């Protein structure tokens, strides 16, 4: 059964377009979530949520008029449609009546998280903690987080579209703090490590050795206890697979989102077809990848998700579109119109963005560096899309000396520019992996997959702590 009666959806759209508009849309959502964490040896902060709500959008020319309401009562839906329509200045338009929503091709869920007893989730957190503590006596703190969500959405629009999607996401994460007393009388060394497993999937995602996530977080923290100060200067950098792809996401991906491009707020504006990377470099945004974190059946405007080749053989080949920006450019949406919830307007957003695998092995990439940095994972990053300037804090990194990975480094930051970094990619390995990220933009957080194989960048600015 649908969340709202299609007949009511038709009346809401009619009300929304009573003062005109090129597109009227009703977005309906039923959100459930559950989260639990373990900290200091204690399972705590269980949180359950259930929210129902809807939003109405009318697009007229370049302007979007939007409103939302909590709850799905008929009166509230019609009221919000009426108030949105009040802002539009034009003649009424008759929408095409939507039928019953057609379910999108979803992603398999073999064990529904909401049907798994909360006690089993609590036990999982405890076994993760145990595994992390077993990694070494230096482990002094373990935090484990579990979160599940289910979003049932229905989208109706005045072009007769009626579709639904049922999205389940499950995620397990661990943060570890390791401490070691100083051999002299200095302060103790303290380092952190973290790891995550998540997907557009059910509890089956955690069937196979979920505790490996905790062990990996602990190993990172312990390893970093031996870290030396990071060097400063322009150096070659080999970026690790999986979460290393956040560099592509931040420094290139955001600049390909069509809203930034159309406002000339992207360094990639007007550069379609240009050779921005070496021949052979390929990158995708792919919202279809089965069970991946950033995947959905349809985007939040009802467009089926797809694979978009953004860089082909080193050339920039596509931007990422939602419906509004696609209309402005006279192209079709690429299925990237995403929103955090019914409380938000859709924006062009990445799904899973990654470099395609190449031929090299990670060892070969490292062997080609005489003195540089091996950046395995980042604590996060930030980019200014207009200039392409980015900054990333390296949370796990090593020195490369004489073609070999040597000491871990702490406090290193990569500073650079997307266009320059892309042009400087001079090697791609074959070990593609996609990690789970949360991407913030315009005040909205969405699940985004970031990924890549090992990638080598000829030269980047490393901001270190060594003098």
């Amino acid at each position, binding site marked *: 059964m649908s969340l709202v009666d299609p007949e009511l959806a038709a009346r809401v759209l009619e009300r929304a377009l009573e003062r005109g508009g090129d597109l009227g849309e009703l977005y309906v959502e039923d959100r459930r979530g559950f989260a*639990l964490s373990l*900290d200091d040896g204690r*399972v*705590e*902060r*269980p*949180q*359950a*949520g*259930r*929210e129902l709500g809807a939003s109405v959008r009318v697009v007229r020319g*370049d*302007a*979007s*008029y*939007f*409103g*939302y*309401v*909590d709850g799905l009562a008929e009166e509230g839906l019609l009221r*919000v449609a009426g108030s*949105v329509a009040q*802002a539009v200045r034009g003649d009424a338009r008759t929408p095409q009546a939507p039928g019953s929503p057609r379910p999108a091709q979803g992603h398999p869920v073999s064990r529904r998280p909401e049907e798994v007893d*909360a006690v089993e989730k*609590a036990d999982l957190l405890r076994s993760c903690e145990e595994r992390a503590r077993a990694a070494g006596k230096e482990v*002094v703190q373990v935090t484990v987080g579990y979160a599940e969500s289910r979003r049932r959405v229905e989208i109706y629009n005045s072009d007769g579209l009626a579709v639904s999607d049922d999205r389940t996401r499950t995620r397990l994460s661990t943060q570890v*703090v390791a401490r070691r007393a100083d051999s002299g009388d200095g*302060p103790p*060394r*303290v*380092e*952190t490590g973290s790891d995550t497993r998540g997907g557009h999937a059910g509890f089956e995602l955690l069937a196979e050795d979920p505790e490996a996530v905790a062990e990996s977080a602990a190993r990172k923290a312990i390893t970093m206890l031996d870290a030396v100060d990071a060097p*400063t*200067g322009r150096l070659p950098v080999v970026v690790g697979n999986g979460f290393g792809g956040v560099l592509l996401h931040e420094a290139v991906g955001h600049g390909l989102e069509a809203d930034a491009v159309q*406002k*000339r*707020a992207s360094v990639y504006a007007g550069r379609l077809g240009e050779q921005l990377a070496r021949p052979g470099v390929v990158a995708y945004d792919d919202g279809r990848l089965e069970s991946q974190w950033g995947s959905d059946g349809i985007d939040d405007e009802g467009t089926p998700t797809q694979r978009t080749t953004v860089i082909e053989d080193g050339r920039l080949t596509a931007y990422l579109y939602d419906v509004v920006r696609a209309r402005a450019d006279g192209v079709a949406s690429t299925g990237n119109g995403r929103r955090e919830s019914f*409380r938000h*307007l859709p924006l062009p957003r990445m799904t899973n963005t990654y470099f395609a695998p190449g031929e090299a092995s990670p060892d070969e990439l490292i062997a080609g560096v005489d003195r540089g940095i091996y950046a395995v994972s980042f*604590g*996060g*990053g*930030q980019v*200014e899309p*207009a*200039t392409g*300037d980015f*900054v990333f*804090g390296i949370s796990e990194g090593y020195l490369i000396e004489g073609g070999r990975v040597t000491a871990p480094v*702490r*406090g*290193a*930051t990569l*500073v*650079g*520019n997307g266009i320059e970094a892309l042009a400087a990619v001079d090697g791609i390995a074959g070990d593609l992996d996609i990690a789970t990220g949360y991407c913030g933009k315009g005040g909205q957080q969405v699940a985004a997959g970031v990924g890549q194989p090992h990638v080598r960048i000829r030269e980047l*600015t490393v*901001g270190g*702590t060594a*003098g």
Partner: protein
Amino acid sequence: MSLEELARSGVEAALAAGASDADAWCEESVSRQIRVYDGAVESLSDAGGRGIGIRAFLDGRSGYAYGTDLGEEGIRALAQAAHSSASVADPDEHAGLPDDFGVTEVPCIASPEMAAWTTEHKIELALAVERAARSREGISQVEETVFADEEGSAAIANSRGFSASYAATQAYAYASAFAGEGEDLMTGIGIDLARHPGALDPQAIGREAADRALALKGARQPESRRCPVVLDAFVSASFAGFIGAMLSADAVQRGRSLFAGREGEVVAESSFVLADDGREPGGPSSAPFDGEGAATRRTPLIDGGRLAGYLYDARTARKDGRATTANASRGSYRTPPSVGTTNLLIEPGETTLEGLVSQAGEGLYVTDVAGLHSGVNPVSGTFSVGAAGRLIEGGELGRPVREITIASDLVGMLRAVSAVGSESRWMPLGGSVKAVPLLIGEMSVSGS
């Protein structure tokens, strides 16, 4: 039913479900957001939200449930979910409601003038911000101009018979402007916030966005150096927000703060004074009570150079044998209360910004930092963050620079504060901070 009645019904439902103690937080808001671009409306949002969060205690265990269904049936279902989720948690002897509740009178947090503003009027305000930015010579683009306001109410009730509510209004506008083209392009943000739209100055917001972008136009990467650094109010607010988070008793007790075990120690130069104040009339985060019903107050954090204390909610206070500082913070009804700052205040000094720059002599003026949250190690306090700004040459602002990182450790930086600026302003960065510029005696700046 009023919000306070709804909150009370949430508490009753939780007790009926078997909770030994409970509280409920109920919120309602009407908000608008207007984006303009190129002299026209790009989007207009009008939204109304209402929800409740119920916290159930069960012999030292606690569970939380939130939702949007405020009907009798909906509240009962949430109360049961809160109660049953509590049973999965491990007991915590310190968990529970605060020992005393109350309300501090905070004047002027809800402005009656809000109602006088029509949507058309607000659109004009946003367009005026954009025009003010665009009309500055050298501005190539105004990428984003936003006006937003909100009228909200919140209510709390608990099983000790306490209930209270308040209303607040908020309005803000910001713009992001570009100066230069291609490789020379740099961006700047202008922002202002107030209790009602009439207190915003659209000219000043637009001008600030333009001036901040123009100041950086044509920036290049400089050579690495160690030098005095002036942090402008945007940047000092971000650092203050980070320091505030590290002063949470929760972070301290969990061993996740560089300030753990350092109460009373010298952690800053004595001119750097920092406090948290939840009742400051102009403070965006001011309210009569915190997220669990404790009356808001002022808490000195760094005073006379020494670490004066931490921020507490009921649970962390009980654990340390202290009183709560009324810093149980709620992001919204969707999250249970946890320790957080209200308004952070850096006490203004006596030197103008010009004076700080002149005192720096040869150094760096930083107007932007990026990646603070990934760049600072919360336990050791060492950091290395991306920055942009202007060089200081002969005591005056010189050429613009970018693609640099500044590195130090937080305590080292606070102890190196050699002068505190006199011009303070509210910044919605790092939470809510009344910030001033700071002159740091020496930092490591890495460029090429």
